[in-house]
């Protein structure tokens, strides 16, 4: 890999993604944890740009930083005694071993195809645009059923969450 804009971008976004991820699982303060999560997810949005999916990157920023971050901070403030939990972790050692083992297995699975030459080295030139996605979403032969199911899911989630969170006494 030579030094070019994509390489620099990749390195920067890797630092963002993994650094933010480490911040999420280690920080004691949940508000800072939310900020770390946003740093991490911003890095993921950067990957989407590098992978020629700018629409997904914009949506990632819009949904996570614009909405889910706000929602999590609201929830953190609503459950304020969270900072008072003394110990951050439970069963820290087994969890660490399990996740490390998982990482090694995944890394093994990722790297083996390189040596057998199964993984593509370069990407095709042409990439689908947002318009293609929009056309496919509502196409009979495309994703129209998942598209409508997603709407049902969102409706159900909203009704359910309002039903749960609403304070009956108020």
């Amino acid at each position: 890999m030579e030094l070019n804009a994509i390489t620099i971008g990749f390195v920067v976004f890797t630092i963002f993604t993994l650094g933010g991820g480490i911040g999420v699982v280690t920080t004691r303060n949940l508000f800072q944890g939310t900020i770390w999560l946003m740093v991490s997810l911003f890095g993921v949005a950067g990957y989407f740009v590098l992978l020629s999916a700018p629409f997904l990157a914009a949506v990632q920023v819009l949904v996570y930083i614009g909405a889910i971050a706000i929602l999590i901070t609201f929830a953190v403030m609503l459950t304020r005694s969270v900072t008072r939990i003394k110990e951050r972790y439970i069963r820290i050692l087994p969890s660490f071993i399990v996740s490390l083992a998982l990482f090694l297995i995944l890394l093994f699975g990722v790297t083996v195809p390189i040596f057998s030459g199964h993984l593509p080295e370069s990407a095709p030139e042409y990439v689908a645009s947002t318009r293609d996605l929009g056309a496919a979403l509502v196409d009979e032969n495309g994703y129209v059923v998942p598209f409508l199911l997603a709407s049902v899911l969102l409706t159900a989630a909203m009704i359910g969450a309002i039903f749960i969170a609403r304070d009956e006494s108020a």
Partner: protein
Amino acid sequence: MAPLWMYLAVAAALFSLGVFGVLARRNAVAVLMSVELMLNAVNINLVAFWRYSETGTDLLLNGYAFTAFVLIVAAAEAAVGLAIIITVYRNRRSVIPEEARALKG
């Protein structure tokens, strides 16, 4: 262009971080954030495979569209999960999943 396996390796690391958070963190909100990390690791994989797959003449949109669906599921999960956490906190003054045993038989 960075080769495919690099994206996959980063996604694997992010996923493992999420798994560690889900298993080890005590606070329900932190567990939820770790789940978000795992979902995003999956999204990196989906987009990377989509980008590197051979499209030929026909447009292949599976990975692209699926990522959008994962995003929606992640949002729905966050909304309902946080609502449950708030309600449990209101009734029990606790945000530790192990202490919420109301639904256990």
